[in-house]
């Protein structure tokens, strides 16, 4: 049908497009309110790209052009080339190792000319395509562990490479794709196990280790008591409970300390402990060489404290556009990029934040709705992938700025300053729009 009716606007979901434009414009205005100084010639610095808001506008235009190209492309192109893109992405990621430039403690950036490219960002698109492609294969039966393992490998391979580039934040984002797998039938048990593991790790950080061991043992004994009938019938239950108990204590006693002394960098551990307000017990034991720049001797929770002050000072109605004292005068570090929400929080207060978050939620739910109306598994998986990645970014970033999560440097989608980030999210979204326009087609 589409081939016969080439009007490009056919089937396009305009709601998503308008939401996208609204968010990017909000982002540019936020960057403007951070970097604009009185007496600056706005037009001039826009045109000559002297200012960050000028550059961001330029990236917006690039994104729109790319978006147009994507919409003009045939949907089959994406299914056909998904695996090639994935290979290309992995190659890019690997190229980072010989060609990276160290910027702000991360080794994940390639620099050419005046531009910086972060392949880990771009890879999200490729992984999403590849995962959707794999899930939509006829021979894939996602109830089989073999398929589940392959899917996990597709997602985790770039994540591991990204960790090696000291970009833990972006690596975490790849875990978002587990939401897609969940939608496609990954047993809920995995999620429950993952959640329990997370609870166990958090408990290890919060509770004194001997107390926690006693609690775990108590739970094990209670389980033994409750299941004594079944145990009589089947001995293996006893062993599995004992094994489970051993596993939990092992995690609590050895795995977490190992993680915190040998895997994470010192500043990351500090951030985690400063979030929960406890002294870092592993400070002296940490064997990982700290690569974080030592130029800022500020206390570990400085960023978050300043960010909370900025957001909190907005009050109910906010100080107004360009009137925020905290964001105007650079009190919040990294406020163009990771802490961009401070500008909105301070300038427009709780009301503005609710509207802003409402836009995001509307976007996410809209994407889920779109996903559910797809006929082809590929499109549905892809749509869920977009929703998951955007959701994951928003959650981590927002929780970080309001002090609910440790400082993990990942951008706020469509809002944060940064070319790669904006282009990546735009491409993600425009591919979705293209696929959605062909929702009647079955793509494989």
């Amino acid at each position, binding site marked *: 049908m589409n081939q016969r009716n080439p009007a490009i606007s056919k089937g396009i979901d305009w709601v998503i497009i308008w939401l996208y434009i609204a968010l990017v414009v909000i982002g540019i205005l936020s960057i403007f309110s951070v970097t604009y100084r009185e007496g600056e010639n706005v037009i001039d610095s826009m045109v000559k790209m002297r200012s960050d808001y000028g550059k961001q506008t330029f990236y917006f235009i690039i994104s729109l052009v790319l978006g147009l190209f994507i919409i003009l492309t045939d949907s089959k192109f994406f299914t056909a080339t998904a695996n090639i893109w994935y290979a290309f992405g992995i190659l890019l990621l690997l190229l980072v190792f010989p060609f990276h430039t160290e910027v702000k403690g991360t080794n994940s950036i390639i620099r050419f000319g005046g531009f910086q490219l972060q392949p880990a960002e771009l890879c999200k698109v490729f992984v999403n395509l590849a995962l959707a492609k794999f899930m939509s294969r006829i021979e894939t039966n996602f109830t089989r562990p073999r398929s589940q393992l392959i899917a996990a490998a597709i997602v985790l391979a770039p994540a591991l490479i990204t960790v090696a580039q000291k970009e833990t934040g972006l690596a975490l984002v790849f875990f978002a794709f587990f*939401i897609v797998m*969940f*939608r496609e*039938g990954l047993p809920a048990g995995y999620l429950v196990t993952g959640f329990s593991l997370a609870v166990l790790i958090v408990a290890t950080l919060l509770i004194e280790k001997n107390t926690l061991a006693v609690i775990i043992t108590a739970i094990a004994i209670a389980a033994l008591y409750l299941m004594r009938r079944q145990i009589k019938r089947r001995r293996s239950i006893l062993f599995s409970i004992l094994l489970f108990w051993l596993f939990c204590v092992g995690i609590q006693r050895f795995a977490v300390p190992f993680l915190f002394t040998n895997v994470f960098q010192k500043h990351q551990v500090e951030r985690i402990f400063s979030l929960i307000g406890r002294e870092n017990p592993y400070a002296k034991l940490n064997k990982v060489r700290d690569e974080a720049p030592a130029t800022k001797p500020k206390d570990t929770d400085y960023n978050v404290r*300043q960010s*909370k*002050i*900025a*957001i*909190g*000072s*907005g*009050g*109910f109605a906010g100080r107004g556009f360009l009137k925020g*004292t*905290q964001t105007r*005068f*650079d*009190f919040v570090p990294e406020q163009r990029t990771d802490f961009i929400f401070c500008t909105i*929080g*301070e300038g427009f*207060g*709780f009301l503005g*934040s*609710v509207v802003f*978050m409402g836009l*995001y*939620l509307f976007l*996410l*739910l809209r994407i*889920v709705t779109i*996903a*559910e109306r797809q006929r082809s598994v590929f499109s549905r998986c892809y749509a*869920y992938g977009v*929703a998951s990645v955007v*959701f994951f970014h928003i*959650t981590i970033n*927002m*929780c970080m700025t*309001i*002090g*609910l999560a440790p400082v993990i440097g990942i951008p706020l989608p469509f809002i944060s300053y940064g070319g790669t980030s904006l282009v990546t999210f735009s491409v993600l979204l425009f591919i979705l729009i293209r696929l959605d326009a062909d929702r009647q087609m079955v793509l494989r």
Partner: protein
Amino acid sequence: MSLFNQSRSTVIRLIFLGIFFIIMIQLFNLQVVSNKYQQMAMDNAVFRKVVYPNRGIIYDRKNQAILNNTIMYDLVVTPYEVKKIDTLALCRILEIDTVEFKRRMLEVRLKNGNFRPSIFEDLLPPQLHARLDEYIWKFPGFALVERPVRVYPYKAAAHIMGYVGEADSGIIRRSGGFYRLGDYVGRSGLEAYYEKVLMGQRGITKLIKDNNNRLVGSYEMGRFDTPALAGRNLRTFIDVEVQQLAEKLMSNKVGAIVALDPKTGGIIAMASGPNYDPNDLTGPNKQKNYGRLALDVAGPLLNRAVQGNYEPGSTYKPMGALVALDEGLIGPNYGYPCGGFYQACMKSVKCTHDNPGHAANLRLSIANSCNSYYSHIYRMTVENSKMGGLKKAFPAWKIYLNHFGLGQKLGVDIPGESNGLVPDTALYNRIYRGSWNSCTNVSLGIGQGEMQSTPLQLANAMCVIANKGFYYTPHFVKSIDNETRADTILNKYRVKHEVLTRISDEAYEAVTSGMQDVVERGTAQAAMIPGINICAKTGTAEKYRIIDGKRIQLEDNSMFVCFAPRENPQIAIAVVVENSGFGSTWASPIASLIMEKYLNDTLRSERLKEVDRIVAANLMPPYLGRLQYIEDSTRAFRWYNMTKDTSYIMKFLKRGQPIPKPANPSKPAPVLINRSASLPEKLKVQKKTGTII
């Protein structure tokens, strides 16, 4: 399957909603519930710049400024802007070395950071300022900043004016946060008493600062700023020329002069010796000078006119007479047959006269200052049977003296005033376990014993006699510029204290006649000024002091009180010169010169010689040198004990013997510490020889 999938998409939607809900709750908590962040944001970004107004000026009775403001300059540095300067050249101008330069830069950075201007050197002397002003363009980051400073054009009235200093933690606490660290506040004298009037009203300019503490503009276009209001000026009763004369006369003497206007209670002059130049405590060397003054055992910072306690001696006698007259115990014609001693009590009180009839009546008794007469009428007064005997008459006598302003704070408008002392029955009951009588403290009758008064109290008592019964609380300030009803600070000085007007005019006439005789044919003939009837009384009080464990008798304190002219009193004076012998020797000529200067507005040419004679006389007590040595060496020893720093104690050990060398040069420190036990011994040896420097 479809149903299963459908529920999973719902689960995902619910996860999205749940997380967003948690974020909204935290946002609500931050932005709406808690309001501490608004305050923290203000602290972050708004700098309250305090604008200090000029302090008020203090004028004398002829509207000449005794105390004024001038501009001095601070050398201020912004470390961030200091780049590639010729450090050596700057050091040469400032006369410091590069080590000191680096130390100061570091201190400044630590204190105020890299972006805020901080004081590098404060209150530059004028020559230094001139030199720096010429070259300051060579030193980017350095600037000369104006700062108002107090000056005293007449170099006079240091004790009266007091000084301004930075508020210490005590003042800040007591003010309840009104003063902040670094604020200047009156620390003594009129500066302290009239602080609220003189300081004006601080203004506040709210400025926006950025994350590096740089000021980037005004906050909300200055909507929340308050302007600074200059301090108001004080108009005083002081006659600055009389004040200068009084201070000049007190040079090289220990003591005090107070001159009052009896009609108003206004203080014309108040000098205390030893004295200091008030400019010493404002200029660039104020810290050093303050240290020098504070450590001087002669006490130049002490205002003896209000803080010195002296036995009034014979200057008490006119008051004793007035009390006896008012109680009807004696009449103007009452006489006492004094033969050179007062022997009614077991001990005998010596009188300076032994010719019969020198106390034949009240007038003669004052003119001749008969000790027997006043011992006698004192005993009559405190044993007055009409009053009900000693236990009631003695308190009545005390109340009389309190009405004269003795034995209690008068309430003068400078801080630190002393009470003086008029003993009460409780004191004697305590000392003598209740068994005492009028003989026990008969020396009170001649102004000695337990009685103590300040020169100000004595001058004020003269005002009472001159005014025939009333006085106004002595005070300096006549009026405050732009005085309003809200200024209650001067109200108490406009209240007439007139209890003693109940004493008859005849009694006052009798006493004042006697006092006039003191000048015309008695002990104070040196005080005579042609054409002016002066009423006066000399006094002498014995003085002891314990030095090195020995009680040594010092020269008597020379006292003199007077008022003039008798018919229309315009000035009342009290003079105390410590350790100078009889009242007539030094105190009366000093008072006379001040009266002449004030009443005639000038001194006769032959009197200038008298001024020179008095100024030239060095009456500093001889024990001061010894006392200074003891104080300094003990301080040095205490410093040594505390810090093991030998630099101060060495000066004292050097005398008489070579510096003890440590026995083992390779280990000097422990040897020195061991020596510390024997150090007091060394000082004791010095003490025994009693070298007076």
